[in-house]
């Protein structure tokens, strides 16, 4: 039995671990993949207070080392379910179950998929959700970016420096992202805009060879591409916990700045919570708040 179990070793979860350990609580952090969360693949972070320049990997590793040095225990297991019985909160993973007095859900978000039948099997074989991670494989090749927000625009700009041709496919005729980035893209000769269109099929022979694009009037064209970068937003990772925390229409856990959920002793922290700004500094802030609230909750029992 632990005092506090934290689900997710992203910036929010690891910050919560630091605060909980400094309050002398026993802490288990459960992580489905690697510590660090979304930020691990980012080459440069330039907006974290007092840290003018650091890579995502270094940021995550320093946070991890700080939390482990303070005595937080980490296990690399995915939480599939949570249960509440009286004062005991249980987290079920693929390999077992763990009990605590309080839980902090800090599961962040993951990239939204297009939802095409063979999409999953083509990840790493031409389909990617991270231009800065995988762009290097497409030097002098033809790629497509799908999406209309800032991530899609920045991905297209980044890839335009590497690839021979970049198609930017968007379901509307106007971008949601910043005008300045759109203007930069328009100056690039190797960027082709494909408006009012969606990607409707992926063609592959072992790896991606072409995509089928359908426009609003139903016309279908095939574009030969080596790579497809999907940037159609992110979805919060709250599905496994929906029985005990209420979610808004987009799937975010409804909680105010105090990070409390409908279930006493169950808190949420970070990008999976309803909030205005989803950044490292706000994730860290949530981690501090959720841990402090959890400590208060345990003291009140």
């Amino acid at each position, binding site marked *: 039995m632990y005092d506090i179990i934290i689900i997710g070793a992203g910036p929010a979860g690891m910050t919560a671990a630091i605060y909980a350990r400094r309050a002398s609580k026993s802490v288990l952090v459960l992580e489905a993949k690697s510590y660090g969360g979304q930020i*691990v*693949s980012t080459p440069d972070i330039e907006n974290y207070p007092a840290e003018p320049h650091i890579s*995502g990997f270094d940021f995550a590793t320093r946070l991890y080392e700080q939390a482990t040095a303070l005595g937080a225990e980490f296990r690399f297991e995915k939480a599939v379910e949570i249960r509440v019985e009286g004062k005991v909160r249980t987290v079920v993973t693929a390999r077992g179950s763990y009990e605590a007095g309080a839980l902090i859900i800090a599961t962040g978000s993951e990239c939204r998929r297009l939802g095409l039948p063979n999409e999953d099997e083509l*990840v*790493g*074989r031409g389909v*990617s959700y991270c231009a800065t*991670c995988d762009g*290097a494989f497409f030097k002098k090749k033809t790629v497509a970016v799908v999406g209309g927000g800032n991530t899609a625009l920045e991905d297209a700009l980044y890839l335009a420096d590497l690839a021979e041709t970049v198609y930017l496919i968007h379901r509307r005729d106007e971008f949601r992202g910043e005008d300045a980035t759109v203007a930069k893209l328009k100056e690039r000769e190797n960027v082709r805009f494909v408006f009012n269109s969606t990607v409707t099929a992926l063609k592959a022979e072992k790896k991606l060879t072409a995509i089928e694009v359908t426009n609003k009037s139903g016309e279908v064209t095939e574009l030969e591409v080596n*790579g497809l970068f999907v940037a159609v937003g992110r979805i919060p990772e709250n599905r496994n916990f929906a029985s005990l925390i209420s979610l808004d229409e987009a799937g975010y856990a409804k909680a105010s700045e105090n990070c409390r959920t409908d279930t006493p002793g169950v808190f949420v922290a970070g990008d999976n919570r309803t909030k205005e700004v989803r950044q490292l500094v706000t994730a860290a802030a949530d981690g501090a708040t959720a841990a402090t609230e959890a400590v208060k909750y345990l003291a009140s029992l």
Partner: protein
Amino acid sequence: MKVIEATGANFEQEVLKSDKPVLVDFNAEWCGPCRMMKPVLDQLAADRGDIKVVSVNIDDEDELAEEYGISSIPCLVVFRDGAETARNIGFVPREAVEALIGD
């Protein structure tokens, strides 16, 4: 054993002609999750004499990356008797790496 660095020149000898199962780690210096993978693979190579662990730097060995259809890293590929038997993209903890290798 230690992790062996493979290149286009020794890939056939070290990987395809190996009589032990080989775990090939396609990686790059600039890739954060690859750097997280390294200590896991170093430990695995040290502990398990029944397999061979090989690292391929995709920046230096872009032809190997191309040949094996790698477009996202870290990418772990298991070879047995010269043929690919399993593949995983992204960081995975040790137990998942061992499951990938199989018995």
